[in-house]
């Protein structure tokens, strides 16, 4: 196995392992809300904290590994630097894990100031360990982003080349020096990612300062803005990282070519801006927030649908439309990931409408839409990447019957699981309740059944992946 593949699989397997553990926690929490089991609020909220932090980091790890691997194929990229970034993120995950079990830290993965310090039912060291963990994840993420940024700038002739500026505005731009779509994605993710990582470290430093010396006070509105900028953009970028290999994978499975166009470059610039400013929608119900920022939040959230659907989804649909698409598990996961992204995006757009958010804010509608595009989008994209690698390596794909079994269990289970959130959210059931008011327990029961069916499907996916991985390589390189 080449070093590049080692790096890819190190990231991917760690991401999937963390994801699986977090999924089991998620099922346990839905079972508690369905009143099938009773852990009690202390354990429930500790699990909730870990689930949130772990899930985002797991899909981020998959995205980082996948996009790094694609960039490595574009030119020289240090595996050592990628592994340092990986080690920092994993150290952060370990710290977060220790803070929660056995520490009992339960202030939520959003750790809104001053909750980690007020009314805490966990020891002070757990708070410090959690914040250190978040700082390490931010540091590893920022290091990875700097590597991506440095690479794209060097490889494509500086800012004007890497961003696609030359392609859009320079008439004599060398077509050979135009970055492919996945490189434009890497550039945008790196720029936004550096801002995100710096925000994560800023809020981390502020809260650690307060932890060390409680007389250091932090403004709660400022803390909320910085925390949500960090959390929202970090979660959002996991989708945009995955698009890098969606472009590559769709082109490969359809036998068609996907190039960077002026429209694609402009769309990614728009994405760069929208990812950075859409987070204001998390503060819609903070009426003291400067009013124009609320409007900016809604407009940016709305307009982010344009580059997403008119370029990435549209471009993928054109690649597939009346093509000789090879429908393997890899391509099915990539294509259905688009479905999850779009459907989750619709739920998010409704929630981003301020008059509707007035009724939906912090109800189960919020986890409904972000589970749709993280589980039904980014996670499926990650499975698509894994299967694409396994199918290419072995030159084989899964039999049709198995594809049907995986399809019915995975997508059927996912649909039932997600509907549990949507129905409860539309009926005003609050999110993050260990004990939910009606109809929460009923919809949590559906969700638990759906999640168990999904888990069954994913076990089949895992077994099939191991089978493909054990087949002799078609191409020893």
């Amino acid at each position: 196995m080449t070093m590049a593949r080692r790096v890819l699989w190190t990231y991917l397997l760690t991401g999937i392992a963390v994801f699986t553990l977090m999924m089991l926690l998620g099922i346990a929490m839905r079972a508690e809300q369905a009143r099938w089991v009773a852990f009690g609020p202390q354990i429930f909220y500790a699990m909730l904290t870990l689930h949130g932090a772990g899930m985002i980091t797991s899909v981020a790890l998959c995205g980082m590994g996948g996009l790094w691997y694609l960039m490595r194929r574009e030119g020289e990229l240090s595996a050592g630097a990628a592994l340092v970034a990986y080690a920092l993120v994993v150290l952060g995950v370990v710290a977060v894990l220790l803070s929660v079990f056995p520490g009992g830290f339960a202030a939520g993965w959003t750790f809104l100031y001053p909750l980690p310090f007020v009314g805490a039912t966990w020891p002070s060291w757990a708070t410090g360990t959690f914040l250190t963990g978040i700082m390490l994840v931010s540091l590893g993420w920022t290091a990875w982003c700097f590597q991506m940024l440095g690479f794209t700038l060097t490889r494509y002739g500086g800012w004007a080349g890497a961003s696609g500026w030359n392609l859009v505005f320079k008439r004599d731009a060398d077509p050979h020096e135009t970055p492919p779509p996945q490189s434009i994605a890497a550039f945008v993710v790196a720029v936004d990612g550096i801002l995100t990582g710096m925000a994560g470290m800023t809020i981390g430093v502020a809260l650690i300062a307060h932890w060390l010396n409680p007389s250091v006070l932090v403004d709660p509105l400022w803390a909320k803005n910085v925390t949500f900028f960090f959390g929202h953009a970090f979660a959002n970028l996991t989708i945009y990282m995955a698009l890098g290999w969606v472009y590559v994978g769709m082109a490969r499975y359809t036998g068609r070519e996907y190039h960077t166009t002026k429209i694609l470059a402009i769309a990614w610039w728009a994405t760069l801006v929208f990812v950075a400013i859409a987070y204001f929608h998390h503060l819609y119900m903070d009426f003291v927030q400067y009013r124009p920022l609320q409007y900016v939040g809604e407009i940016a959230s709305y307009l982010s649908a344009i580059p997403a659907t008119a370029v990435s989804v549209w471009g993928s649909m054109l690649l597939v439309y009346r093509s000789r698409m090879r429908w393997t598990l890899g391509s099915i996961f990539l294509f259905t990931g688009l479905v999850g992204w779009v459907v989750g995006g619709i739920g998010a757009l409704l929630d981003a409408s301020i008059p509707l958010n007035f009724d939906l804010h912090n109800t189960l509608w919020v986890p409904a839409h972000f589970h749709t595009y993280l589980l039904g989008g980014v996670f499926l994209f990650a499975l698509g990447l894994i299967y694409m690698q396994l199918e290419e390596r072995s030159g084989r794909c899964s039999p049709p019957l198995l594809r049907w079994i995986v399809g019915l269990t995975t997508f059927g289970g996912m649909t039932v699981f997600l509907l549990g959130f949507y129905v409860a959210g539309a009926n005003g059931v609050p999110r993050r309740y260990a004990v939910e008011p009606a109809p929460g327990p009923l919809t949590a029961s559906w969700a638990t059944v759906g999640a168990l069916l999904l888990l069954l499907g994913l076990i089949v996916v895992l077994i099939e992946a191991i089978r493909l991985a054990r087949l002799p390589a078609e191409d020893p390189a």
Partner: protein
Amino acid sequence: MAKGPLVLPAFLVLAVAAMAVLLLVALSTRLSPLPYSQVQPEGYKLRRWWFLILSVGLVAIFAVTLPWFPYPPLRAAAHATKNGTLYVKVTAQQYAFTMPSVLPLDRRIVFEVTSLDVNHGFGIYDPRGQIVAQVQAMPDYVNHLPVTFTRAGRYTVRCLEYCGIGHASMQGGFDVR
């Protein structure tokens, strides 16, 4: 009026429409293949329309729905005595709300919501169990939430921002008559 129950059908219609489009694209691979050079120009033409409809549509939705934004006028307090608005103080603290137990029907009320400790959410559920209004309760800040209750009965208040392990039990209420 509670809008939550209207959101679900709207979402389902849009989601099914989006899934149908993607399914049709997937099923098109069963037809005889077309060269990409033929598909791409037609697809780009259609995309222009999609871009136009989506851009204009989303900006129009923003503009048209502005009157339904729940924010109070920026100088609300200055008009307090003129229009008979009732100002009601609400204080949130782990894990309870301090507020009046009875409030008037058909009169404009502005809740002045704050917190003594961590971030909380002040979510008002009508007697049928639907959310009718909410705002965050934040330490060091006061959020003004204007509401006019048009239905008499018992209203429940639930915390809508995670505030610690007693979060789910943080609830209160008042009668409107």
